[in-house]
């Protein structure tokens, strides 16, 4: 995954710490799509994601004067996002409804999607909305911590080392969570494989 240039972030952070609110706006614009994906795939709800994302940036703005640059801004803001989302999910519990975003039409031209539809019969037979529903249901059956690791690794393409820094756990823990989550996803998606058009 292409990480944003840290020296550029450092400059924006320094300017924000000097009281330049416009510099923080640039950081917000830069990180909103990335953090949206992270929070959305952990909550599976657009409205919750929007509220959380606002809170995450508000907290970051309040805390940025205390940011001393021990980690990159990228790691720091992702840590805030993951921790706040995990806290939110604990409070929300199991009572929630899926509020999914539409699948972008550009998926039809995606190389991986084309490969999957060519090689995987369930993906070929199911329509896109059914595939989306099944994937999200399988994701939501994972524990919050496992879903966070799966989101960062599989969907956002972060390396293990970066995930371990964000979650403040060892790389071994990240790998074991990923292994366990993959096994669970295999079981949950097995039904989809057997019956793709349920």
């Amino acid at each position: 995954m292409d990480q944003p240039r840290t020296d550029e972030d450092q400059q924006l952070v320094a300017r924000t710490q000097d009281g330049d609110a416009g510099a923080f706006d640039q950081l917000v614009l830069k990180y909103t799509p990335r953090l949206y994906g992270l929070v959305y795939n952990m909550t599976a709800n657009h409205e919750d994601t929007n509220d959380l994302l606002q809170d995450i940036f508000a907290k970051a703005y309040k805390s940025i004067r205390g940011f001393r640059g021990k980690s990159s801004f990228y790691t720091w803001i992702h840590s805030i996002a993951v921790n706040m989302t995990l806290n939110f999910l604990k409070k929300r519990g199991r009572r929630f409804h899926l509020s999914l975003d539409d699948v972008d039409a550009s998926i039809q031209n995606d190389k991986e999607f084309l490969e999957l539809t060519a090689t995987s019969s369930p993906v070929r037979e199911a329509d896109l909305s059914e595939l989306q529903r099944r994937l999200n249901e399988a994701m939501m059956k994972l524990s919050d911590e496992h879903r966070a690791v799966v989101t960062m690794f599989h969907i956002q393409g972060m390396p293990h080392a970066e995930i371990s820094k964000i979650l403040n756990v060892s790389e071994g823990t990240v790998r074991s969570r990923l292994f366990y989550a993959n096994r669970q996803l295999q079981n949950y998606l097995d039904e989809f494989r057997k019956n793709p058009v349920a």
Partner: protein
Amino acid sequence: MDEFNDDEIGRLLRLKKFEQPPPGYFENFLHEFHRRQRDELLRQPLWKIAVERAQDFMLRLNVARLASYPVAAAAVLVCAAVLSLKIYQTPQAPSVAQIQSTVPVQSDWNLASQVSGVMATQPRPVFNANLSTHRKTAPPRYVLDSMPVSYESTLRF
């Protein structure tokens, strides 16, 4: 095909990247962020805004330690104030009850009055209601010197 392997699961999950919010969402996000910040600022009490501004000022002066431990700093100041009050407090003189003799001095002494005089010169405790150790409202207490009759053994030899 038996089941999805790790690679296929990864490729399936990567498709979730195509789930995107409505068009224009990211453009409006910053405006919404500013609006919420303004709203929050208006809802905050004045003292809270002042504290935040003061904290910002302290951080800019690079006295992070002092600003990050305001409670500890306040506690030290309070302790110092209390200790200085204790140290500089002048001790009060103890209030001791003084008994003044109320016996008149007899100037004309004779034999007839010897006994009574000796008795009279002995300092006798004078009852002073103000020095009473009992509450005025408390009823008098009677202490029995011996055991009650009913408690004595009837078979005493």
